[in-house]
């Protein structure tokens, strides 16, 4: 049966067909839907959200050593978090076949950098596969499991946004259950103390030699002969783009297995073609290795290492051809940047925090990343998951050292706090910091599309579980000054900020607790927060057109320039009442609505 699947759905299907029994991940674009789709195979695969990518990979390592086939998936920057276990598990090898999926993001549609994770395969000396479409994505998971068990190694499956989120046709197969291998204690394999690790490193080097022989033989790396004037070497989505542009005007060496590279096949191919192009997105990962073998090729001389490739870019770089386009004036076109949703619980908090003077607001990864834009203009920084809390500590230390009148505030979400913010808060507490840590608890992982986490009370596959209360956690860690507030109540926000700013010799924590406006409320949420049953309305005769409410940046507020009045979009308003509190003339009121 053939079905249209995204690359992520196809990877999940591959995990099912390949006999995977355990899967773990932390959500992150563009990888999130891999585990969400694996979780649908409830009968066959145990799928779990981990608090972070390091934990996800470690759980998968444990599963493998115990004898089960396992898969971990994460976005490119997630692999940085998981790099510690990755490099040593690369030494030990596996028991059950093990796959690590890295979903890279050329173009940074929803990421803070565009690192090329193919280097991780080379760096950690593990085999790597790169699918070009959904069919290959599915098939390569099955093949990766086989390679993992044959060569006793973790296998990296590297995909990019265009693979993850594009749909193409896939032939579905049946699940082939792996044999559960018995667990045996193997100190010489899994106990990576220095004396063992030295031996394991030697084994890894031998494994690489065997894998290079495999790379030269496997049909994952294949040649398509057409016109031999141009030869193209490409992998992943770049191969599809190259086919689109050159068609039969070039011959191809298509690489599906890209670490180690098939140098013999590459040399044979290079010898037969007049001009050799290496077409790859981001870094010259393949090109530099080919050039280091003394093979002449052209690549990054003509292609940028920044952003996504496209057929258009390749056509213009190598053929100097351009499609005819309609020429028109778009100078008055305006963008539609993403914004915090109507009723977002982050809005009221940043609205007040952003107004404070002599404050450095350290931001983190999540929807609140949007708090730096107009009109909120609140946060100062974004680096990585969990960084806000530790960065605030470092910054505050410097402000204190130079007697500067500045306070460092950290703002971090609930899921991000569980991810790596907890370690950072330990740093704050241990090192006698006086930063203000604000945990914006919207009761869900918001930006990636509502995944449960340790604070929500549910597992990925729908089992009720312990709710880890953030207030209890920070108190248990040793924070003495903790307040929990409703961020929709601006007076409560201001009072809490005044309170925290007055504590200048010890750390304080403000927890804003209110569900994401788009969250499907759990029974516990309904009990605690009640159903959404009201909206705000503007009385036009009272409104004076001062635009104060518009400073909240709520997308439900509509300014009518002709009559100089504001109205509220009933399709969007969820009655959070933040705008109402900013109105100096009480022109905004609440009305009940049936939902």
């Amino acid at each position, binding site marked *: 049966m053939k079905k249209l699947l995204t690359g992520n759905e196809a990877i999940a299907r591959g995990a099912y067909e390949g006999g995977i029994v355990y899967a773990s991940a932390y959500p992150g674009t563009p990888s999130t839907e891999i585990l969400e789709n694996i979780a649908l195979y409830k009968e066959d695969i145990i799928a779990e959200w981990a608090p972070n990518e390091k934990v996800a990979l470690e759980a998968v390592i444990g599963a493998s050593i115990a004898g089960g086939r396992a898969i971990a998936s994460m976005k490119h920057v997630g692999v940085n978090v998981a790099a510690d276990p990755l490099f040593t598990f690369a030494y030990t090898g596996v028991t059950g076949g093990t796959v690590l999926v890295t979903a890279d993001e050329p173009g940074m549609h929803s990421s803070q950098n565009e690192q090329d994770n193919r280097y991780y395969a080379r760096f950690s000396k593990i085999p790597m596969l790169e699918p070009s479409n959904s069919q290959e994505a599915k098939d390569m998971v099955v093949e990766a499991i086989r390679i993992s068990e044959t060569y006793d190694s973790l296998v990296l499956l590297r995909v990019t946004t265009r693979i993850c989120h*594009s*749909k193409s046709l896939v032939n579905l197969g049946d699940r082939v259950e792996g044999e559960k291998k018995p667990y045996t204690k193997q100190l010489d394999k899994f106990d990576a103390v220095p004396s063992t690790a030295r031996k394991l490193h030697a084994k890894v080097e031998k494994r690489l030699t065997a894998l290079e022989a495999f790379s030269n033989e496997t049909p994952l790396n294949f040649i398509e002969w057409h016109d031999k004037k141009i030869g193209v070497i490409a992998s992943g989505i770049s191969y599809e783009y190259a086919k689109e542009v050159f068609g039969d005007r070039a011959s191809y060496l298509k690489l599906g297995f890209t670490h180690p590279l098939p140098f013999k096949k590459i040399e044979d191919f290079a010898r037969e073609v007049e001009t050799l192009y290496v077409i790859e997105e981001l870094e010259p990962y393949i090109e530099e290795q080919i050039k280091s073998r003394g093979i002449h090729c052209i690549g990054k001389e003509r292609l940028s290492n920044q952003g996504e490739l496209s057929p258009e870019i390749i056509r213009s770089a190598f053929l100097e051809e351009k499609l005819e386009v*309609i020429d028109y004036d778009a100078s008055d076109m305006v963008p539609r940047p993403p*914004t915090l949703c109507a009723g977002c619980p982050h809005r009221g908090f940043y609205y007040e925090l952003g107004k404070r003077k002599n404050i450095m607001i350290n931001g983190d990864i999540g929807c609140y990343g*949007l708090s730096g834009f107009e009109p909120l203009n609140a946060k100062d920084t974004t680096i990585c998951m969990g960084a806000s809390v530790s960065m605030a500590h470092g910054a505050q230390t410097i402000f204190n050292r130079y007697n500067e009148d500045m306070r460092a505030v950290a703002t971090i979400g609930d899921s991000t706090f569980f991810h790596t913010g907890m370690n950072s808060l330990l740093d704050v507490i241990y090192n006698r910091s006086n930063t203000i840590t604000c945990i914006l608890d919207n009761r869900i992982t918001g930006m990636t599309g509502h995944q449960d986490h340790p604070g929500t009370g549910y597992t990925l596959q729908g089992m009720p579980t312990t709710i880890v209360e953030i207030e209890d956690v920070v108190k248990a860690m040793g924070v003495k000054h903790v307040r929990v507030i409703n961020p929709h109540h601006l007076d409560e926000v201001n009072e809490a900020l005044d309170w925290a700013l007055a504590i200048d010799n010890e750390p304080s924590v403000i927890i804003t607790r209110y569900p994401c406006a788009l969250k499907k409320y759990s029974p516990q949420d309904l009990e605690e927060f009640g159903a959404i049953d009201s909206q705000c309305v503007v009385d036009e005769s009272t409104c004076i057109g001062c635009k104060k409410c518009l400073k909240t940046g709520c997308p439900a507020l509509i300014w009518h320039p002709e009559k100089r009045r504001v109205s509220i979009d009933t399709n969007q308003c969820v009655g959070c009442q933040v705008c109402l509190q900013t109105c100096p003339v009480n022109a905004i009121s609440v009305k009940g609505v049936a939902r």
Partner: protein
Amino acid sequence: MSTTKNILLVGVGGQGTITASKILSNGLVAHGYDVKMAEIHGMSQRGGSVVSQVRYGEEVHSPVIDKGDADIIVAFEMMEALRWLGHLKPTGKMVINNYQLPSVRINSGIDSYPQNILERIREKANTTVIDASDIAKSLGNRRTMNVVLLGALIKSMALEDLNWEEIIRENVKEAFVDINIQALSAGMKEI
């Protein structure tokens, strides 16, 4: 790959472009075509500009459509039609929903909505304007606007000889099947 046809569905998050392109793609598969479809998810796209790219033919390679290479663009919103006009083949067709959805920055009085969009596009391309929102409203469900536009797209690309009713039945919730079938045929009549 000159036999490959390229369709862009552009609009604003929440307008139903993704559902329309899903129905379209499944129909094309049932037709026996090779199909690829690309979307960008990620940062909260509520109210953001969204685009679905659908390519079909004998064998499709790239999932993305270049500037100047779309055979048809169906714009669910007027400003989005202007934004994506550069992706249309000079000989391509533009189908525009006669509907404006201002951005947050326009609603806040920071930016202004571009003027005379329909006239400006008509000057440059073969354009059909459809009151899809009004048609959907008259059918009794404003949210079927996307399927009205899908109907217009199917007729424009001469794909109407397929059992689209069955495809709709397979892709929308049972309670909405009938109204979506009506919306589809209403959209076809507009071309």
